[in-house]
């Protein structure tokens, strides 16, 4: 027994490296407890607490960034490097913005407020963990932690059948794809006998990797994340869930959850499956092309703004997938491809959060998600209109709003890779960005050029939380557009393979 006890060594813990997770976990617990204590009428305090906690978790990230270096734990299974730090910080900020957006929404809708914050925080914790996860088990666990609360958040408007439906669809498809992913992981594990990405990489690129089963394993793993980032044809859940879920949750799903999926993909592709672009390049080529095209084409016919944004976010995922498809042809392209995806993700987050914030604000008055309800918005809410216009055209990639730089980076990675396939994909992306403009501009058209549908011109009151969310988003969007170097630098920093 003693021997056994001795053998049970306490693992090496780098507490500094884990500090963000620890702080966040602490906040999680405090929120849970506070929710029990705080009086029903003052639940907003819990939300504020959660917000402060999220920001507090940023502090250790800053200290880690200052101290620099890569901290690898558990044989490379859990790594805190610049990539991880950038994304952890990004997730925390996204979480904070979503919290800002949701505070009034949840309160006024009379939904469970404390638990909402709690689940949101857990999901964010899952994402924060995901950023550092460099083995299959951690990735799986992190994925589940970020997903399961999200399934429930999607159904948070309990009395609304649509919200229930959103939750159910998301849950079922999510669980099924995670089953597929697990099956793929088990196969890869069986071939390589390891779960740590950096250890399986050389094995996968050796002769061992050239078995059909490996291709199937890798593909099955990717399926789960393709689902998570709503890549066509694994996107079906997205429009329905986005439409049914509470709008802040939709924003969360379309931004944070999607980013988390991409974070996992980045790690898997650029660490674990590096050197196997013979498998993933064609896969991502098809995924990217389909995702952009289908997302955009279907978006053309949408009449509901949330659903439209859902398809738009599908299409946006397509652009982010482009670099994956073209990376791998050479080392330089690998770097620029990664950077492209990362930069795109960060910029996309700001644009999309902003757009959803406006949707929430407008819905406060119109109580509708129909695009036609945006008619003449400019006449009674010029500020919101201006903001929405900025976000929409940023999403469309029109300079000087941030989106152009994201798209530019994607194009850049494709051209950097060179070759007919890469250029063809770039052209597809280019054509798609034109198609996309049509529906983004359609909303702008409705806001600026159409009459007010019911002639109700009462101004829209924007609660401070929402206003702050809008402010943060728009500042980021414009700042990136004008001085993209800031984010480009982050992208360079966060690159996994250098």
């Amino acid at each position, binding site marked *: 027994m003693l021997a*056994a006890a001795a*053998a*049970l*060594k306490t*693992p090496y813990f780098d507490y500094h490296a*884990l500090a963000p*997770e620890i702080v966040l*976990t602490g906040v*999680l617990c405090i929120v*849970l407890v506070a929710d029990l204590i705080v009086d029903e009428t003052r639940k907003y305090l819990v939300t504020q607490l959660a917000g402060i906690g999220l920001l507090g978790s940023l502090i250790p990230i800053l200290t880690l960034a200052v101290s620099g270096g890569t901290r690898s*734990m*558990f*044989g490379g*299974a*859990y790594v805190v490097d610049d990539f991880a730090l950038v994304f952890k910080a990004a997730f925390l900020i996204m979480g904070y913005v979503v919290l800002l957006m949701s505070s009034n929404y949840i309160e006024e809708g009379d939904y*469970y407020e404390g*638990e909402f914050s*709690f*689940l949101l925080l*857990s*999901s964010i*914790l*899952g994402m924060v*963990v995901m950023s550092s996860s460099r083995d299959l*088990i*951690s990735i*799986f*666990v*992190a994925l*589940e*932690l970020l997903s*399961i*609360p999200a399934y*429930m*958040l999607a*159904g948070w408007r*309990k009395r609304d059948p649509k919200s229930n439906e959103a*939750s159910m669809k998301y849950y079922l498809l999510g669980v099924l794809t995670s089953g597929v992913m697990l099956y793929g992981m088990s196969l890869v594990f*069986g*071939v390589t006998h390891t779960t740590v990405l950096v250890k399986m990489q050389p094995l996968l690129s050796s002769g061992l990797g050239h*078995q*059909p*089963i*490996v291709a*199937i394993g890798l593909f099955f793993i990717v399926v789960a994340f393709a689902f998570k980032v709503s890549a066509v044809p694994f996107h079906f859940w997205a429009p329905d869930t986005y439409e049914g879920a509470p709008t802040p949750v939709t924003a969360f799903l379309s931004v944070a959850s999607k980013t988390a999926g991409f974070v996992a993909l980045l790690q898997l592709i650029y660490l674990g499956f590096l050197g196997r672009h013979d498998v993933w390049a064609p896969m991502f080529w098809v995924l990217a092309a389909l995702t952009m095209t289908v997302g955009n084409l279907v978006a053309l016919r949408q009449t509901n703004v949330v659903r439209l944004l859902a398809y738009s976010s599908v299409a946006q995922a397509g652009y982010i997938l482009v670099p994956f498809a073209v990376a791998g042809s050479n080392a330089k392209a690998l770097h620029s491809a990664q950077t492209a995806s990362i930069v795109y993700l960060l910029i996309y987050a700001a644009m999309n959060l902003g757009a959803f914030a406006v949707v929430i604000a407008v819905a406060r008055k119109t109580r509708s998600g129909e695009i036609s309800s945006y008619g003449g918005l400019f006449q009674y809410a010029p500020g919101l209109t201006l903001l929405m216009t900025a976000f929409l055209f940023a999403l469309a990639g029109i300079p000087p709003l941030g989106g152009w730089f994201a798209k530019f980076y994607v194009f850049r990675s494709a051209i950097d890779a060179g070759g007919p396939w890469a250029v063809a994909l770039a052209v597809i992306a280019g054509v798609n960005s034109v198609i996309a403009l049509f529906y983004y501009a359609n909303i702008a058209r409705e806001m600026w050029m159409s009459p007010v549908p019911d002639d109700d011109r009462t101004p829209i009151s924007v609660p401070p939380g929402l206003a702050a969310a809008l402010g943060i988003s728009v500042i980021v969007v414009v700042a990136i557009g004008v001085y993209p170097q800031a984010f480009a630098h982050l992208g360079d920093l966060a690159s996994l393979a250098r």
Partner: protein
Amino acid sequence: MILAATQHLDVAQNIVFGLVSLSMVVAAIRVVTTDNVVHAALYLVVVLAGVAVDYVLLAAEFIAVVQILVYIGAIVVLLLFGTMLTRAPIGKSADLDNDQRWAAAVVSLFLLGVLGWALNDAWGSDRLPPAQVQRTADVGNSIFQTFVIPFEVVSILLLAALVGAVVIARRD
């Protein structure tokens, strides 16, 4: 001698595996084809128990125990509760399948074919090494050393699932 013993054991194992597998296959098919929800749950128990037996055959006793405890003891019960709470007909009901079952069958058979081909290609006749029991302590060590972070994460996950499920499921 040892080799002979191993071979004997192997034969025995194979017989057990064959029987168990057969029942699992039948039970699994019944789970997805039976027209009685409760029966389905019971067939599921057979499958899950079979899985536990397989774990034993693979010398993973700890997992086998966990399998019985968590799956048969908790999950199936949970599912049965779910069946009750949603007032599913306890007896037969005609339409438990939707109209795309043929498509589903095609997809899954195709998938089975692909997987079978690829598995055969990869591990065609690889034998399992003689069973070496992996001690529970080793598993424990591994969990609390290498996989401590996933472990912690799972604990938070369970907490979150609990809190969330309560909110979602409760009447208000």
